[in-house]
């Protein structure tokens, strides 16, 4: 590719660099805001009173047969 054709690549190279720069800026922002510290506390923020830590919150639903037999027992 000669020098003239090379100019055709500039838009995508510049966009790639811009992409990288934005990522680094956001990484800096997150570090400044303290998001890269105190990892243990942040890992637990997904748990709630409704869906607490230490409880499995999903299982297969009961089969319709076992649902019926449970109802009969009641």
């Amino acid at each position, binding site marked *: *590719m000669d020098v003239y054709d090379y100019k055709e690549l500039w838009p995508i190279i510049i966009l790639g660099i811009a992409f990288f720069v934005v*990522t680094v800026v956001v*990484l800096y922002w997150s570090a400044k805001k303290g998001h890269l510290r*105190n990892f243990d506390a942040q890992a637990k923020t997904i748990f709630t009173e409704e869906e607490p830590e230490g409880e499995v919150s999903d299982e297969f*639903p009961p*089969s319709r047969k076992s649902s019926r037999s449970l109802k009969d027992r009641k």
Partner: protein
Amino acid sequence: MSNESKVSSSSTSPYSSDSAAERAELSEIDASIRTASVFFVISAIGWLMIGTILALMAAFKAHQPDFLGAYEFLTFGRVRSAHLNAMALGWGSNINFAVGLWIMARLCRAKVDHKGVLFIAGIFWNIGLTVGVFGILRGDLTSVEWLEIPQYATPMLAVSYALIGVWGVMAFRFRKGNHVYVSQWYILAALFWFPWLYIVAQAMIIWFPARGVVQSLTNWWFAHNVLGLWFTPMALATAYYLIPKVLGRPIYSYYLSVLGFWALAIFYNWAGVHHLIGGPIPAWLISAGIVGSVMMVIPVIVVGLNHHMTVVGLHREVWRSPTLRFTVFGAISYTLVSLIGSAMALRSVNEVTHFTHFTVGHAHHGVYAFFTMIMFGGVYYMMPRLLKREWPSAGLIKIHFWGSAIGITIMVVALQAGGWIQGLQMNNAEIPFLQIVENTIPWLKARSVSGLFLTVGHIAFGINFFWMLFAAGAVRAKAEPTLLTKEGGAA
């Protein structure tokens, strides 16, 4: 106040604050996003079905060229492109909107305001896509892979996406508390990356076409990144939310999860160039793409290790949860497909796999075995909480899981084994090309068989979903926040 204390004080118990005004109840948040999310899931399942039918047609045509050959709109080129766009923008993007925005709302503890805007934008997204896929079948498709949708349909998609994406960004902006869980990073980044990729690719290839090889470069920058910077982050966000959430155990190392995210953000953007190895572009650019691809080993190992260590000792719970069966299958696939992808970027490997079915198998490994399986898991977790109803049939969930798992395994093995042999033979000048093509037929037939398994799985999923949605009286009500009781036994 130090930065550290800022975060910890706001993140220790935001859900259980004494102030009712500050405390965000998950059920309230779920209720606020119910209409939009259910609409997106319905749309996604609709496109999944359409995409599956188109996929079956394309798969059969690959070894039976006369199949439906008399209809112009069902020729291979059109059906295959319609399948790709129905799956990527129809199933993939709709399910990203449904699951991604729901997780974002929950983690931001933000009830959805202006939900009508989200709903209307969703309607227009699907109208735009319908016009686009119809245009492809009509013969108006562009010749650019992953961007085949005709020019007249793309503005509606762009505007609709802007309205949907802005909602996610606003939820993040007005979140309660300062903490940002790793899933929020992934979702927020994906919401920025996708329009960036789409607009640049549309502008440089379709609207104001760059010259020659730059179009190819932009094409593969887009096509590879739409997988890595749109579908991958959304699926990883979902996995990082669901695995610890369902098991009730925090992620093994939050530090590693953050490291994985930033490594993806920094390295992935360059990876797409490896599709042009051997092409007429500067060698340094291809080398940079190869370096980016190989560097992806870091986030992949990090994510794989983190997920694995989180489930260690709880495999029984994983197997008993429909959500985690799908999600963990997807998470394991992420590790495998990504490592294979990094290897494929090496020149010595690429000279065998390039222009073969190996690449097609790799694409399905990523988009289906990884992304789609995790999103199925997301739907199994999300829907009972949105509708406050139980899934009606455990049997249909199992059919769905086994249909999908067996189907995609057959497909990936067949296409990658067949593709590798095809590549070796193509590099041997003594084997006639037509013979190589004939040698691929058994592998292509195996792909069609895999498609039948997948179809059975998707039909089971669709029946279970609409049964749950419409047969309200026949479906057991959700009584507790953790809706699934133990008396029903395991899978």
